[in-house]
């Protein structure tokens, strides 16, 4: 029987939540790396026992870990992220110029083809790749040397590369998103990059329709239809049908189109999930009601999913890497909150239950579907 393993990164350690395919009864393992911020953990699709983890701390810097036994044991791997070529500089909050400085790894994306290959999105924004299981890292600096990078600004959370999508049908194509530079695409395996922000409109920047400078929070795709992208921007939920060349808004009837997460159902390419947040200054759900919104039409028409979720006095946030879907049938949906809850729906969002409700603030949630 299939099972699932949920990898949860929190402000004070990592937790691994396991269940059989029914997803009703859960085993909680952790904390791993207790006391450390775990920004992200993700397993390899090629070898599910291979899991990479990003551990960071203001005190001790960046540490990288790898497990080869599904998270039972961990070993430290390489933590040297050296920018390649000319380091360069970018804009700072106050308009001053700052040299690119490595701070932390936000997101890890294992290759779907090779368990030893993994990509890392870092702050200050750059994309790194390891082909030796995380021992050494090399920057794909075509992204950072893109002509616009000197004018990139950090978002409130830093100038971070937080989303990496690998096209499962075209190994040469990949997408990344950076706060607050926007979305970018490579069609040559990461050597060169194009900004793909046409159609985005951000009233908080000097030119609302600029080629770059948009605060993209998250992008997602369905593996069967990778040219269709969904985006949760700072404000606005967006869609592209041509791999990011053009975007249009699909916020429709959402109570707020601000938010961080967006995810696509594993078996239904037109079913997607967002979690509206009231505003960029009030990082909690509208009306104190924790509601996932689901569209079965690829956007614009949304229904609130509330069964099992708190519908009063709820003021948590759900961060950009903290929603995931499993590949079981019916498809499961998961998200974690800054209040320390991790919720699961084993029926595509109709009903929810909390797996754990008193963890440290959740930074990331990933799911592995195991045979």
């Amino acid at each position, binding site marked *: 029987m299939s099972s699932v393993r949920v990898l949860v990164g929190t402000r004070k350690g990592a937790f691994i939540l396991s269940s059989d395919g029914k997803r009703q009864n859960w085993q909680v393992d952790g904390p791993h790396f*207790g*006391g*450390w911020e775990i920004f992200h953990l993700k397993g390899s699709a090629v070898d599910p026992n291979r899991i990479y983890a990003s551990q960071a*701390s*203001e*005190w*001790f*810097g*960046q*540490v990288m870990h790898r497990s080869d036994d599904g998270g039972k044991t961990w070993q*430290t791997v390489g*933590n*040297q992220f*050296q920018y390649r070529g000319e380091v360069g500089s970018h804009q700072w909050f106050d308009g001053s110029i700052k040299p690119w400085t*490595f701070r932390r790894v936000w997101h890890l994306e294992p290759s779907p083809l090779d368990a030893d290959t993994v990509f890392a999105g870092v702050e200050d924004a750059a994309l790194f790749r390891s082909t030796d299981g995380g021992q050494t890292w090399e920057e794909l600096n075509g992204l950072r040397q893109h002509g616009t990078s000197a004018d990139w600004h950090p978002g409130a959370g830093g100038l971070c590369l937080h989303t990496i999508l690998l096209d499962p049908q075209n190994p040469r194509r990949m997408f990344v998103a950076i706060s607050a530079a926007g979305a970018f695409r490579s069609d040559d395996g990461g050597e060169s990059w194009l900004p793909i922000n046409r159609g985005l409109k951000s009233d908080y920047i000097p030119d609302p329709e600029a080629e770059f400078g948009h605060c993209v929070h998250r992008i997602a795709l369905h593996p069967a239809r990778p040219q269709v992208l969904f985006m949760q921007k700072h404000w606005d939920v967006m869609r592209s049908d041509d791999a990011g060349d053009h975007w249009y808004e699909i916020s429709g009837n959402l109570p707020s189109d601000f938010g961080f997460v967006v995810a696509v159902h594993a078996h239904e390419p037109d079913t997607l999930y967002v979690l509206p947040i009231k505003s960029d200054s009030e990082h909690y759900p509208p009306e104190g009601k924790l509601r996932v919104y689901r569209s079965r039409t690829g956007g614009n028409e949304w229904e609130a999913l509330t069964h099992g979720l708190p519908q009063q006095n709820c003021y948590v946030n759900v961060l950009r890497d903290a929603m995931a879907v499993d590949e079981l049938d019916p498809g499961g949906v998961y998200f974690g909150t800054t209040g320390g809850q991790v919720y699961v729906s084993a029926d595509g969002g109709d009903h929810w239950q909390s797996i754990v409700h008193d963890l440290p603030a959740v930074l990331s949630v990933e799911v592995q579907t195991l045979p």
Partner: protein
Amino acid sequence: MIRVILPAHLRRLANLSGEVHLDLSPPVTPRRIVDEIERLYPALRGTIRDAHTRQRRPYLRFFACREDVSFADPDQPVAPPVATGEEPFIILGAIAGG
């Protein structure tokens, strides 16, 4: 023998319990102490000093004989009681944050 006390998080990261004991010939300096720790415990590379700049991380301090030597010349020999193991060399994490 030089005795080094590490913050609890770093001891856990390197699977250590208690003090670290180093054998170093003179001159015993803060730089050589950290070099030796990183050589013996590769998991700690980059956690005490930045991997690229080799600068001490801002939230860590070095103490010897009850004196803060964080800002002293890292190539200056430590006090004799530390070099002989009578007193430990302490790497201390800032008490700050949550």
